[in-house]
C-alpha cells in the first residue's frame, strides 16, 4: 500500500470527497435531521415550534396515537416472523436441494431469483388480483381441484390478511435467500462432503453437522436484511391493502404508519410532520436495537459452533 504523502493528500481528498459528501448528506444526515424534527410541532410542512420530547410523550400516552403505534409494532413482528420462517427455514432447505446436482440445476438457480427482480409494488398488485374473491384465479383454482371449502376472503379478513401479505413478500424474496444459501453451500469444499458420505452420514446429519455451521453467518445476514426490510416495508401494503393497512389496520406496518402519519392529511390519519418524524425516530431505534441483538446472537452462535 502506498504511504499517503503530502503530494497525494490532495488526491486522496479529491477521490473520497464526492462520494463521501453525497452519501453523508443524503443518506446519514437525513436520519439525524429527521430526529431533530421530532422535537418540533406545527401545522405546516416544516414543523417550527419547539416542544422538546412532547411528541414522544404524546405518542405513548395519548391513546389515539399509542394504539396505532403498538398495533403496527405487533403486526410488524408477526409479519417478520412469517417472512423469516418462510425465507430462512424453507429457503434453507430449498437451497440444500437446489445445490444438489441434477438436470436443470443451473436453470432453477436462475429462475429462483427471478421474482426478486420485480418491483414489490407489482408483486403486491399481482397477488391482490389473483386473490380477488370475485374474479381471482386462486379461488377458481381451489374450486377446480375441489377445495372450495378452504376459500377465505383472503385480504378482507383481519385474521388472514397479514399472513397473505407476508406470503406475497416471501414469494418475491424467497429466491434471494435461496441464492445466498446456495452460494454458501457451494463454498463448502467438496472433499468434506465426500468424506461425510463415505462415512455413511444421512442427509440430515450432513445438513446439521456440515452445511448448517458453514452457512450460519449467511443466515445472520439474511435475517438482518429481512428484519430491516420488513420493519420499513411499505410498498406491499400500499399495493395490497392500502396505506391504512386494511381491514381495520390489521396489516398496518411501521412503513405504512410512517407514511400515513407523516404525509397524509389529518382527516385520513395524518398526525403532522413532527409526529411523523417521531414515528420515524422510534422506528430507527427499534431497527438499530434489533440489528444489535441479531449481531450479538449470531456472533455468539458462531463462537459456539467454532469451539
Amino acid at each position, binding site marked *: 500500500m502506498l504511504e499517503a504523502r503530502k503530494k497525494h493528500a490532495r488526491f486522496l481528498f479529491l477521490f473520497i470527497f464526492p462520494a463521501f459528501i453525497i452519501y453523508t448528506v443524503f443518506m446519514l444526515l437525513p436520519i439525524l435531521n429527521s430526529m431533530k424534527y421530532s422535537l418540533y410541532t406545527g401545522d405546516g*410542512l416544516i414543523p417550527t415550534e419547539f416542544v422538546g420530547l412532547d411528541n414522544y410523550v404524546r405518542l405513548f400516552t395519548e391513546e*389515539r396515537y399509542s394504539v396505532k403505534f403498538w398495533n403496527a409494532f405487533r403486526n410488524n413482528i408477526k409479519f417478520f416472523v412469517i417472512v423469516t420462517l418462510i425465507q430462512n427455514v424453507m429457503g434453507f432447505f430449498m437451497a440444500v436441494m437446489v445445490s444438489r446436482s441434477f438436470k436443470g440445476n443451473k436453470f432453477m438457480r436462475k429462475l429462483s431469483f427471478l421474482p426478486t427482480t420485480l418491483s414489490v409494488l407489482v408483486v403486491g398488485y399481482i397477488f391482490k388480483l389473483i386473490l*380477488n374473491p370475485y374474479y381471482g384465479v386462486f379461488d377458481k383454482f381451489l374450486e377446480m381441484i375441489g377445495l372450495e371449502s378452504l376459500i377465505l376472503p383472503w385480504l378482507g*379478513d383481519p385474521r388472514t390478511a397479514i399472513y397473505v401479505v407476508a406470503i406475497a413478500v416471501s414469494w418475491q424474496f424467497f429466491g434471494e435467500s435461496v441464492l445466498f444459501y446456495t452460494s454458501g453451500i457451494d463454498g463448502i469444499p467438496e472433499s468434506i462432503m465426500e468424506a461425510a458420505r463415505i462415512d455413511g452420514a444421512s442427509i440430515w446429519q450432513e445438513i446439521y453437522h456440515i452445511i448448517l455451521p458453514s452457512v450460519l453467518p449467511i443466515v445472520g445476514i439474511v435475517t438482518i436484511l429481512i428484519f430491516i426490510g420488513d420493519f420499513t416495508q411499505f410498498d406491499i401494503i400500499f399495493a395490497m391493502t392500502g396505506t391504512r393497512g386494511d381491514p*381495520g389496520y390489521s396489516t398496518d406496518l411501521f412503513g405504512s404508519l410512517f407514511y400515513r402519519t407523516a*404525509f397524509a392529511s*389529518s*382527516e385520513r390519519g395524518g398526525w403532522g410532520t413532527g409526529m411523523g418524524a417521531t414515528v420515524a425516530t422510534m422506528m430507527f431505534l427499534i431497527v438499530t436495537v434489533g440489528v444489535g441483538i441479531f449481531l450479538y446472537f449470531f456472533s455468539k452462535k458462531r463462537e459456539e459452533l467454532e469451539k
Partner: protein
Amino acid sequence: MKKLLLAVLTMVMAANFAFAAGTQEINAAAESGDSDKVKLVFTSWRTEDIERMNRINDAFTKEYPNIEIDFQPVKDTEYDAQLKQSLAAGVGADIIFLRSYDSGYQIYKTGSLEVLNDKIMDLKGFPSAAIAAWSTPEMETYAIPSVGVVHGVYYRKSVFEKYGLSVPATWDEFMAVCETLKDGGETVFAQGTKDNWMLYEVMFAGLGANFYGGEEARQNLMNKDIRFTDAGFVEAMERMKDLQPYFPDRFEGIDYVTMQQIFGTGNAAMFMGGSWEIGIFEDLGGLEDVGYFAPPLKAKGDTLQYCFHVDAGIGMNKNTKYPDEALTYMKWLASPAYAQLMMDELPGFFGYTPGSYTLSNDLAKQMQSYVASSVPTVRTVWEKLSAESPSGNELVAEAIQKMYAGELTPEEACKYVDDGLAWYYR
C-alpha cells in the same frame, strides 16, 4: 465486455438527450407563457373522469384559445396526501378539487388558496349551504361549490321484473325485496366491506339517515346536544346490520372496484352506491337495465332524509404562475354553461350554480326527482367531527367494518365511534 460498455454509453447518451429535450420543453413553455399559450394544471381525485373532463375543458379552450387545461387527477385514496405535500412545497396544481368542510379547510389553512369572495361575483347567487362547505368561519370562500352527489340504491330492472318486484318505499318493503331475491338464489347486493369508506359514506350516511334523524340529528351531534351512542344512531347501525345476510359470499374481501364490476356486469340485483357511479356503469355497458331508488323510509309517510352531499369544490392556487388565466377559467367554472356541460358529461354530478338545467340522463333525473319532497343532509360526521385524527369519517367506517366482521355489536360500534371522538369533547 466492450459491447456492454458501448451499449451502456449509448443508453446514457440517449437518456441525456431525452432529458435535455424535456427540460427545454418546460423552459420553452415557461418563457413563452405570457405571449401565447398558457397551460393550467387541474387536479382532482376523479381519475375515472379524465376523458369526460377533457371534453369539458375542450369546450373552454374553444372559447379561450390561449388557455389550455391539463387535467391531472390522482387516485382518491392518495389525493389528500399528495395535494397537501405539493401545495406546501409550492409545486401544486393551478386549479384544485377540494373536499368539503374540514378537509378543504385544512388545505386553505396552509395559505395556498385564493379567497374568491371579491374575485368571482357570481358566487353570491350560489346556495348558502353549499358556500358554507368551502368557507372559513369568517365567511371567506375559497372554492366554487361544484359537485353535489346523492346516495341511494341501484337495482337491475330485469331482475326485479323476473320476481315481479316493485321499488320499495319503506325499510320493511326493502327487506322483503331482499328476502325474495335471496330465496330466488340471486346475489342480492354487490356490496363488499374491504374498502370501508363505502360503508360509512354511502350506506350509513345514505341509508342510515332516515333512522338516526337526518339533518336535525347531524346538527345536534355537532352541537354536542346528542352523542353518537344515542338511540337514533344505534338504530341506524342496527339497520346496517340487517343488510349483512344479503351480502355475497366472502364480502370481506370484495373491494370497491370489484363491487362496481359485480353490479356493472349484471351479477348482482342491487348496489348501494353514489350518484357518481352512473358513468362507470355506463362504461361497463347496459345502463338501460339499471334503475335507482332513494333510501327506504323508516315508516310510510315519513319525510325522506336525503343525503345530498357537498362533494367537490374547485379552488385556485394562490401561487399560480398564471393568476389572470386561472381566474378566467375559475369564472367559467362558476358559470351555468359549465354546470350544464358537467351535468351532461358526468351524469350524477349535480351542480350548485344557479340556473335552470336539463338532465339528459334518466338515472340522474330519477335521483333528482326525490329532492323536492325531502330534507337534504350531508354525510353524518363530515363537518367539524372530522377535523382531527382520528376523524369521525374514519371511525364510523371502521366501526361498521368491525360490526360486519362480528367484532362489535351495533351498540358497541356506536360506542367505538364515540370513544374515538373523545378529542371533539375535550
